[in-house]
């Protein structure tokens, strides 16, 4: 309690001494210093952060999730397109193989090779060469489509060489998709049976609306290299055997 002068009230029954006054003054000074320090501390400590808005936090999280989902969707779309392309390629391969081995009729097998070249590969000009059994260096032109006078090497009934890409394939049995210098053959497909090169399929020109051979076409050419020759050989053997059988049957009829 203080009196009207503002000086601290002295305890009753006790006399004010200079010593007491000094202590009181010191205490007051300490108190004022403590007040200043408290203010300085309050100024130095940053105010506590405001409480976050839960809705904004949720929106930010949802946005992150959405971004991730969109990335996933983009990747899945790409994969879906790749898978559909692959399915389309596999379907072509399946149908081509099925048709090649669906018959033992030589004419039908040859016709199937022509259809694969034209309908699946988009070849406007193509030629199928089969090695002559008696003359090793001569090939019979077994099938030709869309040829004109510029393809004079293949216009006759036989092919005796002169086209570098085709000659190379007939020599080493390697599928060539990039034409060699001086050649206008787009692809030369070897026809091999048990390691022996029995002929080649040459693609000379594609339809105007088909710009180039694709990776899927390459698969189809590989398939032709593996299956066309065996299908042709099987048809030839069947045809020869059938002919012999009919001759024998006629002979037996004559004997009877």
């Amino acid at each position: 309690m203080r009196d009207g002068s503002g000086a601290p009230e002295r305890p009753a029954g006790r006399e004010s001494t200079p010593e007491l006054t000094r202590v009181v003054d010191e205490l007051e000074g300490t108190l004022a210093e403590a007040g200043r320090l408290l203010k300085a501390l309050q100024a130095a400590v940053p105010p506590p952060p405001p409480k976050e808005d839960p809705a904004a936090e949720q929106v930010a999280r949802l946005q992150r999730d959405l971004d991730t989902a969109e990335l996933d969707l983009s990747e899945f779309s790409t994969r879906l397109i790749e898978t559909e392309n692959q399915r389309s390629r596999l379907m072509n391969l399946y149908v081509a193989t099925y048709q090649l081995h669906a018959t033992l009729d030589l004419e039908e097998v040859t016709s199937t090779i022509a259809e694969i070249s034209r309908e699946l590969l988009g070849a406007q000009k193509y030629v199928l060469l089969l090695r002559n059994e008696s003359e090793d260096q001569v090939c019979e032109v077994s099938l030709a489509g869309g040829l004109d006078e510029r393809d004079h090497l293949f216009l006759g009934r036989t092919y005796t060489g002169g086209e570098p890409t085709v000659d190379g394939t007939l020599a080493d049995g390697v599928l060539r998709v990039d034409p060699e210098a001086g050649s206008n053959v787009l692809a030369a497909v070897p026809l091999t049976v048990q390691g022996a090169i029995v002929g080649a399929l040459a693609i000379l020109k594609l339809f105007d609306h088909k710009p180039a051979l694709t990776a899927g076409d390459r698969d189809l050419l590989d398939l032709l290299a593996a299956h066309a020759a065996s299908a042709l050989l099987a048809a030839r053997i069947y045809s020869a055997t059938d002919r012999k059988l009919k001759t024998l049957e006629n002979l037996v009829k004559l004997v009877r």
Partner: protein
Amino acid sequence: MDTMRYEYSRPQKQKLGREDEKTMEPKKILVVDDSKLIHKMFEVMLRSNTLVHAEDGQEGLQRLVENADVDLILLDINMPRMNGLEFLDAVKRNNAFVQIPVVIVSTEGKEEDTERALQAGAAAYIKKPFESESILSVISKVLAS
């Protein structure tokens, strides 16, 4: 909150294929083509549908008379006996078949071939070689319209 910002629309697929095949109701489709390979390809591609096969235009007309409930015709142009354009002309002149949509599937890829076929009444023109997704997409659209 601005809700439009979070509205989500799925990016459109660039190609359609299996989806069209699945959503398409089974249909009766007449395939007129002289290539056995193409018949087999359509058999595989459109296996959930009923296919009627013909190897040229004349046989196609005969099959059409026998199967008047055909929903769609897939037609080649270069064929023996009666070609695709002659067949298309015969179909479009017959009141019983005039409503059946015809999709040309041909190796003939010149602009004038396409225009000639479309002017003759074809609903769409697809050039061979084709990808299964593109043909399924066209078939689906033609049947939907």
